[in-house]
């Protein structure tokens, strides 16, 4: 027995030694080359038009202007940005508000410091022939959803229409593609305006041999149904926000990011090219569509890009506390405590940008009309 303890002790000491030898990169590394601050940004997904503003800020040198050296970390199937942020492996993260608030309730110390997307980009799409023109029409239908917290708006709309999502509809787990809807395995499928909806319009209608036209589908837009929730926001680490240098970094990061989004508003084609150059595997017309649709979610921004609208925030929190999912659970059990969001940093960032004559409201923004090609090429 004593021998065993000795062996175990030696093994422990050895592993401790190896770990210290590896060294941790946990401590902030304030200065990189040329006195720049190194910043890691965790995205929710692979590089695509949805993140065009951050990519533009990185590749057009807006971050560098602010003295930041930003590394963009891509997401993956099982990467949860708010967890990566709370664990300290990223300085900022992009995440949807309800999902991030759920993580927050479970102990992740994060704060929303910039609401980049002012609107929701989630649709529920069905064939026009199915006559699903309001959430109440979903009764008895096969309703596709992605799960993992991407379905809250849909559930909120069904609850609002008096449907019990667990009983009155057949819930179907959706894949990454839209074949389920096109083959009518699903009557109404979840789709992001900037991605899956475009995939539908890039597909050929076997009946006509032509691409599907928008008229072929009915879209339930949660912004219009009143159950939209806030989506892509910039989240910061709450405990680090007490640190002055991190506060300064947050302001600089937001200023450069919003400048990037303003650049993409004015130069969607250039932003598409930047996204493609970053190695996105999606085709060019699809990518331009995505940048254009994302622009619609950001602009116009009457209070200034990135400012968290109190009413929209409250609506998101209320829906998160009242909407039940298929198991009868709500997203949040109580109102968020502590510093869940703050406009302090984004307001400072907007002041910086206004002094540089950057248009941070986009009042005159008019979206482009993008023609999608087959397969998005």
């Amino acid at each position, binding site marked *: 027995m004593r021998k*065993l303890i000795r*062996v175990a002790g030696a093994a422990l000491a050895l592993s401790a030694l190896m770990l210290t*030898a*590896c*060294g*941790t*990169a*946990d401590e902030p590394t304030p200065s990189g080359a040329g006195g720049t601050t190194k910043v890691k940004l965790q995205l929710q*997904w*692979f590089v695509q038009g949805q993140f065009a503003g951050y990519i533009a800020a990185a590749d057009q040198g807006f971050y560098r202007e602010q003295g930041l050296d930003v590394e963009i970390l*891509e*997401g*993956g*199937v*099982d*990467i*949860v940005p708010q*967890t*990566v942020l709370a*664990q*300290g*492996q*990223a300085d900022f993260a992009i995440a949807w508000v309800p999902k991030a608030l759920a993580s927050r309730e479970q102990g992740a110390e994060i704060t929303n410091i910039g609401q980049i997307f002012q609107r929701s980009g989630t649709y529920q799409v069905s064939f026009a022939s199915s006559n699903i023109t309001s959430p109440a029409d979903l009764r008895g239908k096969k309703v596709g959803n992605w799960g993992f917290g991407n379905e809250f708006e849909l559930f909120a709309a069904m609850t609002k229409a008096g449907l019990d999502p667990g009983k009155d509809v057949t819930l179907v787990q959706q*894949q*990454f*593609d*839209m*074949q389920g809807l*096109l*083959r009518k395995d699903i009557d109404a499928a979840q789709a992001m305006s900037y991605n899956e909806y475009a*995939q*539908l319009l*890039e*597909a*050929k209608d076997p009946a006509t041999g032509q691409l599907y036209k928008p008229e072929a589908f009915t879209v339930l837009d949660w912004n219009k149904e009143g159950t939209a929730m806030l989506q892509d926001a910039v989240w910061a680490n709450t405990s680090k926000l007490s640190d002055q240098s991190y506060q300064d970094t947050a302001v600089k990061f937001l200023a450069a990011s919003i400048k990037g989004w303003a650049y993409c508003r004015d130069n969607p084609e250039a932003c598409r090219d930047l996204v*493609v150059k970053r*190695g996105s*595997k*999606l*085709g*060019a017309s699809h990518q331009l569509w995505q940048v254009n649709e994302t622009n619609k979610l950001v602009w116009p921004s009457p209070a200034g890009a990135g400012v968290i609208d109190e009413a929209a925030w409250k609506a998101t929190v209320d829906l998160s506390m009242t909407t039940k999912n298929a198991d009868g659970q709500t997203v949040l059990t109580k109102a968020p405590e502590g510093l869940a969001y703050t406009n302090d940093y984004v307001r400072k960032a907007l002041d910086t940008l206004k002094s540089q004559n950057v248009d941070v409201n986009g009042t005159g923004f008019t979206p482009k009309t993008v023609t999608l090609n*087959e*397969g*998005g*090429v």
Partner: protein
Amino acid sequence: MNRRLRLALGGVGAVLVGVALWEGYKAVGDPDGTVLFGARVLPRTDDAAMPHVWTVLSRFGDPELAGGDPIWLVVLQACLFTLRSVAIGFVAGALVGLLLAVLMQRLRVVERGLLPYVILSQTVPLIALAPVIAGWGGRLAIGPYPWQPWMSVTVIALYLAFFPVAVGMLRGLQSPAPIAEELMRSYAAGWWRTLVKLRLPASTPYLFPALRLAAAAAVVGAVVGEISTGTRGGVGRLVIEYSREATTDPAKVFTAMVGAAALGLAVAAIVGLGEFLVGRRRVRA
């Protein structure tokens, strides 16, 4: 020569049978699949669900994106990227497994204490493990080199690969007959000599099947790890990227899957070659 020819013919034949099964089912199966009691028991056979073999093959020759590299080149490069994670994970996993097996064989108490954990380690679902490993990796640096995402994938491959080697080799090291061990004892051979002269040679029949399993596990671990953590560059990432385009380009995702399967075959072939070489040397010796 004759045997090798037969082997090659067998390989080609197996591929042809696979193609014939695919196309045969596609030809006779219901395009909408076969549904029994509300559950689809046989898959759909339309072109979106099961593209023709020649559609997939010709997709290999087309560019990935308009004006880009052809798909075969992209998939090949991705497979080579993944191969690095597989190779390092496999070798490290085999060494860890070997070490554990020797330790467990040497100390009975370690075997009793460790073996349940070794088995338990494989019941942890990969999708739960992968983000945790990626998370730890983000905090580490090996000397001056920061942790790279592919290293997390390598660790996942290692995690799956060590298990069959540990269990198989333990069995192999325990395989010599008591009479052989007693003979070694009568020569006054110590533990080390017994290990090198008796136990290790006796365990080769157990080693190679274990290594084959480990190689397959390393490939699965690397591909799933890449999917899970979204590691850029590998074939697992391509599977996810291409599956998003399955609405309009269903053949594309199959090119990535063929690539992943070819990677598995290539790694298995390397292990087989190793077995062949070791076997030949032993016959000569």
